[in-house]
């Protein structure tokens, strides 16, 4: 048997012939299921610690500052540009139908229900998620996490809980910031650059965007924040050795968080639509 064939057989946990595509698929599925189980247990442990013991203020404050305050500028810039881009991209189609004054409702509704929460979460995953995974991964490979355990401290309580709370509690504020800046950006472009009547723009916004729409976006952001913290911390804790392992953990933290955000957005969107139709069955359309 060729050397390559021996290696494949060896990888197939027990040998007994070459590994087929079905074996590989099965192995991949098992690994992913195990991974999901591992993240779930990790999350339950973190939630258990939140219920059992409060984190110290001296631990929480620097983390809240790093995650919340230092994300404000990037979230604000992203929100502003998204509002402006939405205005530019939709203007011509609406103008062709003579509906340009209704742009306010389209832009603002898109922002508060979808783009604000998703983009704030994406920026948080990119700026904070990767950083958390890299930091915890470095702590893992330099035995700092072992040192915490050896000193009788649970690393999940000490490292994960403050980051989880920071992401969970601060992402709604960041989402509102993204919403606000996007609304302002869109309004400035529409009314000052594209020449849409300001009164009509804001009237349509007010007619179609309700408090519940903003609340839906904020509630969604709570799920996104929790997912970012748990996925990123888990990746950091499971980081492989060396610079390559830490780099991979940081990349995976962003990728998995982003996929998680999109998945949650879809599931929560379906859920919200079901609830909405249940309570308001005769809802008028947008236009």
């Amino acid at each position, binding site marked *: 048997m060729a050397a390559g064939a021996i290696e494949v057989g060896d990888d197939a946990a027990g040998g007994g012939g070459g590994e087929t595509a079905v074996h590989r698929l099965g192995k991949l599925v098992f690994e992913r299921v195990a991974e999901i189980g591992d993240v779930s247990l990790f999350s339950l442990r973190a939630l258990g610690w939140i219920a059992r013991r409060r984190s110290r203020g001296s631990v929480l404050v620097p983390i809240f500052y790093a995650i919340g305050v230092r994300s404000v500028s990037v979230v604000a810039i992203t929100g502003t540009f998204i509002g402006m881009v939405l205005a530019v991209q939709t203007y011509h189609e609406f103008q062709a139908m003579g509906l340009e004054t209704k742009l306010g409702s389209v832009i603002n509704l898109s922002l508060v229900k979808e783009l604000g929460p998703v983009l704030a979460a994406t920026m948080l995953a990119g700026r904070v998620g990767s950083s958390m995974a890299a930091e915890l991964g470095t702590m893992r490979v330099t*035995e700092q996490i072992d040192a915490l355990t050896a000193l009788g401290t649970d690393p999940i309580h000490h490292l994960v809980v403050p980051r989880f709370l920071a992401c969970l509690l601060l992402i709604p504020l960041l989402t509102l910031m993204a919403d606000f800046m996007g609304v302002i950006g869109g309004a400035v472009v529409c009314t000052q650059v594209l020449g849409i009547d300001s009164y009509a723009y804001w009237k349509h916004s007010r007619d179609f965007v309700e408090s519940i729409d903003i609340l839906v976006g904020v509630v969604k952001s709570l799920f996104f924040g929790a997912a970012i913290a748990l996925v990123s911390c888990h990746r950091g804790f499971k980081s492989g050795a060396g610079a390559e392992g830490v780099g991979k953990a940081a990349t995976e933290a962003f990728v998995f968080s982003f996929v998680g955000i999109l998945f949650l957005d879809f599931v929560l969107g379906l859920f919200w639509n079901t609830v909405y139709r249940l309570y308001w069955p005769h809802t008028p359309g947008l236009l």
Partner: protein
Amino acid sequence: MSAGGATAGDDLIEFRDVSIQFRRHKVLRGLNLTIRRGQTLCVIGESGCGKTVLLKLVVGLLKPTSGQIFFEGEDVARMSARALVKLRLRFGFLFQMAALFDSMDVYDNVAFGPREHRICGEDQIAGIVARRLRDVGLPPGLERKKPAELSGGQRKRVGLARALALDPEVMLYDEPTTGLDPIMTDVINELILQTQRQGGKTGIVVTHEMRTVAKAADRVVMLFPLARVGRDDPQVIYDGPAAGLEDAADPRVRQFVRGEAGDRLREPTAADAP
């Protein structure tokens, strides 16, 4: 003195038929070892033979694949989370690269244990930190420096101060002198000796450094990498006093102690495969 060179006291830690493997990589196999109270055991052996793993098993940082580890007769793997925390507070662990918390300064690193376990007020913690830093010979003024600003020797000494802050009964040293110059190596060796003598602490020192062994060991155990041990051969190839290492019957022990490459430079053959 026992055959193992124990100085005094009863059995404190016992490894009973302990094996551990990571995926398919076997590191320890059927290890039996007893460490007596007050004894300083040096564990030597080539890189990858499982010395650090042995230390981490003692405090439950790793769990054995099979076998049991007893501390004062209690199985570490079966302890509740609360009991395990209490156990760990009886240990001090000096990690190979000191493992200081990057985000904290020297003071907060040393104060971490007492503060986390709320054993006393902040005034008393300040006293503990000052005393421990003085014990390890660090000059005043380093308290507000971050670990990245310290030299290798200073980091090790801060790590030792942190490990001693909770006044542990058992000290675990993982390659305490690795990467240090000869003078700093001797400083750390002296500190280990001083720590072990004061209060009659039990200690396990994992090291490659024969000067550390000569200075600190009551007893020496040498492990051999499983990859080069026959299926039925023991992994512990020496267990005795430091003075007997040079004249050990096993040539592998003498080769290690003398630091001779021997046949390691020749091309590996099929017979070398595990």
